[in-house]
């Protein structure tokens, strides 16, 4: 057939019936068995994960009489936003009846400083460990990583004593200190690995150019590290926002973070269980990590991959 092809150069290649020779890109069938299995599995898995969210949203928009009918999966007949308003501003937790709003602002005031301080320290740690190879650096790093494996339960009470002696027990400051310390191992590891993956010659070039420890950190390393900062931020924001244990141990009712307040609303044993308010409160609490993921998912994946190249 080769001579036929050369003869027809310059005109559209005729696709003659019966001549089913392969030519050009291989045809892709949309409904091949492989595609059906692949996409079928994906659809089933996503339905499985989306179902609880669906139930939560639907329930939170229903009135209590409608919930009592028991049709968990049915969409609301009469949409109401009252449970959301109540969850946010009037639901009672213990003595306070101003809803989750208090917990939300507490969580914001805990999360933002904790995230900023822990990332700032961890990134400098990682940079020093990766690039400056100081004496005892490896020992320091090993201790830090081993620290991450000690169960929290062992440290809870000693930390209570430390915070009390420092005079910050029960305050937001105390909780911020605890979160900063506990975020150190994983974030230092993350930053160390990321900085190790950057070409070492860049660091050498900057040294020849006369930049010092901070000069290289701020002028060379930071501008190249956006992805890993995003990863670290996501880990810290979700970790600290979702934290319950430290929140309930190291704060007082006035300074409870949102998660603790949510628990108090949902698990209150007095009165009627208001499922719609509980659902709305839960969604409100989970909203912050969810939004963070949606905004920065792409950068997150890129950062994880970048750090994974070299260990």
């Amino acid at each position, binding site marked *: 057939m080769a001579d036929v092809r050369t003869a027809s150069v310059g005109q559209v290649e005729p696709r003659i019936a019966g001549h089913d020779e392969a030519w050009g890109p291989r045809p892709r069938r949309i409904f091949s068995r492989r595609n059906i299995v692949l996409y079928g599995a994906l659809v089933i898995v996503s339905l499985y994960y989306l179902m609880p969210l669906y139930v939560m949203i639907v329930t939170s928009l229903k009135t209590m009489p409608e919930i009592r009918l028991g049709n968990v999966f049915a969409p609301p007949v009469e949409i109401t936003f009252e449970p959301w308003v109540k969850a946010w501003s009037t639901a009672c937790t213990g003595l306070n009846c101003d809803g989750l709003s208090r917990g939300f602002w507490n969580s914001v005031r805990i999360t933002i400083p904790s995230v900023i301080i822990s990332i700032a320290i961890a990134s400098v740690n990682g940079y020093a460990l990766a690039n400056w190879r100081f004496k005892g650096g490896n020992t320091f790093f090993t201790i830090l990583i081993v620290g991450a494996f000690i169960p929290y339960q062992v440290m809870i009470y000693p930390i209570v004593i430390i915070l009390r002696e420092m005079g910050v027990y029960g305050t937001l400051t105390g909780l911020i200190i605890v979160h900063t310390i506990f975020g150190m191992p994983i974030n230092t590891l993350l930053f160390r690995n990321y900085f190790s993956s950057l*070409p070492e*010659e860049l660091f*050498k*070039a*900057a*040294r020849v*150019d*006369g*930049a010092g420890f901070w000069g290289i950190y701020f002028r*060379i390393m930071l501008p190249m590290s956006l992805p890993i900062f995003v990863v670290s931020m996501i880990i810290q924001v979700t970790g600290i926002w979702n934290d319950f244990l430290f929140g309930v141990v190291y704060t007082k009712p006035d300074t409870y973070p949102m998660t603790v307040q949510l628990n108090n609303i949902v698990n209150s044993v007095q009165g009627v269980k208001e499922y719609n308010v509980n659902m709305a409160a839960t969604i409100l609490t989970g909203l912050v990590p969810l939004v963070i993921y949606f905004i920065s998912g792409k950068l997150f994946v890129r950062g994880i991959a970048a750090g994974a190249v070299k260990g």
Partner: protein
Amino acid sequence: MTSVLVRDLSLNFGAVEVLKSLNLEVAEGEFLVLLGPSGCGKSTLLNCIAGLLDVSAGQIFINGKNVTWNEPKDRGIGMVFQSYALYPQMTVEGNLSFGLKNARLPRDEIARRIARAAEILQIEPLLQRKPAALSGGQRQRVAIGRALVRDVDVFLFDEPLSNLDAKLRSELRIEIKRLHQKLANTMIYVTHDQIEALTLADRIAVMKGGIIQQFDSPKTIYNRPVNRFVADFIGSPGMNFIEGELETRDGAPWFVAGDFRAPVSNYPFDGKGFRQGPASFGIRPEHVGVNTGDGWPFSARVPVEVVEPMGSDTLVWTRLGGQSFTMRVTSERSPRTGETVTIGFDPLNASLFDTETGERL
């Protein structure tokens, strides 16, 4: 005048000795190439001179000043790296000015130096671009520019051309040579590419295992290698080695390996002169004549086993003394596989090495 002086330099990484009591003296304006296989310590030595690695013992002087404990920026050096190491977030101009800003030079001085470097390296149109928008050759030019603007006495190159393709490599090689002629700075250049070493260097230091094996002009290193390692490492295609014995027959010195016998009476032996015993006979493929008459002190008829055309030249494989042997002929004179040819060479061009120590005899 001495520009760079390295005295008894040692470097250990834990128990591993990378550099062993190394001495090196580079004259002002000299182009020195550190050449050796991977892991021989050549880049490590360069990093020590640059101050990027702390030495375990010894001293480093640059322009008569002891800089052993100085920071890289205070040593009067500029360095060019293999991976270019351009700061990706800065423009070319930013890359060039970074070091000068760190040194707090006045703005007009910075502008003047950048303009000069850009003119020398012909990168003026690129000044506002980011490194990602440059080709490999342009990036390496900018990297050289970054060393150039520092206005230093000593340039250090760490395998600067290894990331470029063959054509660009030879182009930039010439440019570096021109740059050296123009600036007349001291340059220390690390490479594992012997062509770069032979073409660029005033002197070459061939390194192996943290020790300088031979430190001499390219010509001497090529023609009179001090030991078998240097002889084997330099030259492409490599030198032929025939293992055999040095013997005296009928009152004349001979090299004998099986049916191969070559007279070595005109061979320039070192101070100790001729001695009997096992030796390696080395001769470069281009020093062997093929079908070039009978004028040679040694000649033999050998069968052609393999012919390798390499463009301008052809490499011909045969066997001599039962061992593999190559010679290089111009492609027009290339024999065919299976033919029998007359080869000849002059032992004056050969190198003899002690089989045991590998030292030149």
